């Protein structure tokens, strides 16, 4: 065994160093540290191990296998591409938080036990909240809501972990779906699912991510949901409920993306939909399905980052992100348009792109398990994906009605990052065997068959026909779409307001009652002891003499009787 320095910790430390750097040194750090982390992960020996004693336990901060290495690699790649894209981001604090966030995600994938997993999980929650917060004043409320949901997820996870450890005495991160489903395992699963964006608390994602800055959302899109998918793969493969939750997420994401008017909110719903594919495949649980999850997570992080980079470029150059305010940008932003289309084709699983060789493994796994309904639903969802992001996103932003905007392509570093990610999408699509070699299980999947190429091309083409035929009905409108967060943003908020009113009224009554009582007492005292009160009135000499005589006589009488 070999003791190695944990690559995730490296990126966290780099993030903490970042606020002290300026100008060129900051730019160098933004590229150097993710690249170094990437190299560390790439050259990490298979038997690398780092353990630390903690209370009576032995924490495993670093444990490597194919699955953890694959996720860590794509996380580090994401940090590198994101760093390069964000060189012009003035807010260093956001980038520092993003690096800590990425480092936390990498550390989660290398954690060998539940306690270190939880520690890095919460580091991610805090750092990602800060990334959202850096979106400016309009992001503050959303960041607080984001933090509240994620801390709730953290509490559920912690309770589940504590229950699991007290029941088994074992802190190792192992498969939990093969034994009895105890209450603490349900808690653990719930904590993981909140981060995956599963219902009912999925609205945190489209609520918060699009409020982040033009660079912030690129980082946010990669880590939280995918670490949740990774841990689900480790702990709950083959859990049936994940199959249904995943399918729900797939369709929920599609429907809301069709209704959406903000391009980044559309991409946020698309994250939920795509993560739904992965959660569903974790529910299938076969080796092929889990390979599909790993491959699709890898491909998804890259093409989603690419789509968000093109959206970020549009926001950086125009300051706008609504479909109703955009359109016709292809004339002046050809590079961005091209990259967005590559991203859109990839997510639509078009032949020669990364989605074609990754997403389709999941559908094949469902077919191999004879899950007919699941297969038909996943293929329908693939067509829907072509519809809402393959066509809707590029069409309304870069084509459609000319909005009269003439922004040029973004600065060169942003263009290079986008081209880098676009090339990655195509390379994965052209040479899937390199990706397949890194998957957790051996795989005998051949994506490029005639029938499969034609099938995926048909999905894309006919989704396009449907889109343009129905353009009038699914066109852009200047609206938002109510989601589950309505419950806590509207009803919950109204309850808080009502409760506040109730408290205010009750308090006023208490105060009024109390002060009324005090006033009565004071008035009484005043009546007897005030200037004209009975007890404070100056007494006449005759009265005094009378009372003195009376008291003396009384004293005499009492003395006489006692004697």
């Amino acid at each position, binding site marked *: 065994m070999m003791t190695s320095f944990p690559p995730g910790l490296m990126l966290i430390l780099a993030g903490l160093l970042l606020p002290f750097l300026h100008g060129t040194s900051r730019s160098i750090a933004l590229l150097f540290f993710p690249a170094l982390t990437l190299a560390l992960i790439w050259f990490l020996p298979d038997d690398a191990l780092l353990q630390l004693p903690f209370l009576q336990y032995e924490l495993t901060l670093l444990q490597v296998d194919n699955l953890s290495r694959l996720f860590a690699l794509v996380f580090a790649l994401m940090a590198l591409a994101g760093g390069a894209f964000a060189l012009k981001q003035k807010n260093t604090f956001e980038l520092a938080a993003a690096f800590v966030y990425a480092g936390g995600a990498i550390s989660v994938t290398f954690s060998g036990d539940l306690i270190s997993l939880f520690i890095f999980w919460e580091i991610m929650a805090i750092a990602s909240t800060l990334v959202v917060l850096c979106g400016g004043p309009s992001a503050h409320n959303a960041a607080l809501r984001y933090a509240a949901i994620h801390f709730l997820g953290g509490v559920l996870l912690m309770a589940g972990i504590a229950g699991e450890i007290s029941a088994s005495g074992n802190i190792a991160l192992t498969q939990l779906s093969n034994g009895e489903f105890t209450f603490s395992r349900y808690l653990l699963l719930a904590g993981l699912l909140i981060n995956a964006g599963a219902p009912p608390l999925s609205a945190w994602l489209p609520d918060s991510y699009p409020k982040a800055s033009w660079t912030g959302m690129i980082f946010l899109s990669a880590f939280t949901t995918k670490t949740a998918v990774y841990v689900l793969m480790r702990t709950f493969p083959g859990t049936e409920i994940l199959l249904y939750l995943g399918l729900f997420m797939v369709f929920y994401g599609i429907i809301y993306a069709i*209704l959406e008017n903000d391009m980044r909110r559309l991409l946020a719903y698309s994250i939920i939909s795509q993560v739904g594919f992965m959660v569903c495949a974790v529910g299938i649980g076969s080796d092929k399905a889990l390979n599909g999850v790993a491959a699709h997570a890898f491909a998804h992080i890259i093409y989603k980052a690419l789509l968000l980079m093109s959206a970020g470029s549009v926001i950086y150059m125009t300051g706008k992100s609504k479909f109703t305010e955009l359109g016709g940008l292809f004339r002046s932003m050809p590079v961005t348009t091209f990259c967005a289309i590559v991203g859109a084709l990839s997510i639509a699983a078009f032949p020669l792109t990364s989605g074609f060789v990754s997403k389709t493994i999941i559908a094949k796994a469902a077919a191999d398990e004879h899950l007919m309904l699941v297969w038909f639903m996943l293929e329908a969802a693939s067509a*829907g994906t072509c519809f809402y992001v393959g066509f809707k996103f590029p069409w309304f932003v870069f084509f459609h009605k000319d909005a009269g905007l003439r922004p040029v392509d973004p600065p060169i570093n942003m263009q290079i990052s986008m081209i880098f990610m676009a090339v990655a999408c195509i390379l994965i699509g052209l040479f899937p065997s390199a990706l397949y070699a890194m998957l957790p299980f051996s795989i005998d999947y051949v994506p490029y*068959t005639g*029938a499969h190429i*034609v099938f995926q091309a048909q999905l894309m083409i006919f989704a396009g*026909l449907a889109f343009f035929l129905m353009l009038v009905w699914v066109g852009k409108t*200047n*609206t938002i*779409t109510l*989601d589950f967060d309505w419950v806590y943003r509207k009803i919950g908020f109204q309850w808080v307001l009502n409760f506040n009113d109730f408290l205010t009224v009750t308090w006023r009554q208490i105060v009024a009652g109390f002060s009324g009582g005090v006033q009565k007492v004071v008035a009484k005292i005043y009546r007897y002891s005030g200037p004209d009160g009975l007890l404070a009135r100056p007494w006449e000499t005759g009265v005094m003499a009378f009372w003195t005589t009376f008291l003396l006589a009384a004293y005499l009488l009492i003395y006489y009787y006692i004697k």
Partner: protein
Amino acid sequence: MKDKELAQSNMIKRLMWGLLVLAVLSVVADFFVYHKSHFGIDGTPGFGAWYAFLSCVLFAVIAVLLGIILKQPETYYDD
């Protein structure tokens, strides 16, 4: 503005024609490839075409219907 709208409708027309040609080609091509079916119907030529089209129409219809209730003005939350 008129020119822009004209250019826009021309672009959609050209795109539609292009997509139609591709659509026909993809369905024709489907008769010349070897199909390995899992559930029967999925191995028939043109299955991807009509299934994708109907799925998308269904999604759009559901979205439009839900939109009647769920779509609200942007100032709805006002925060």
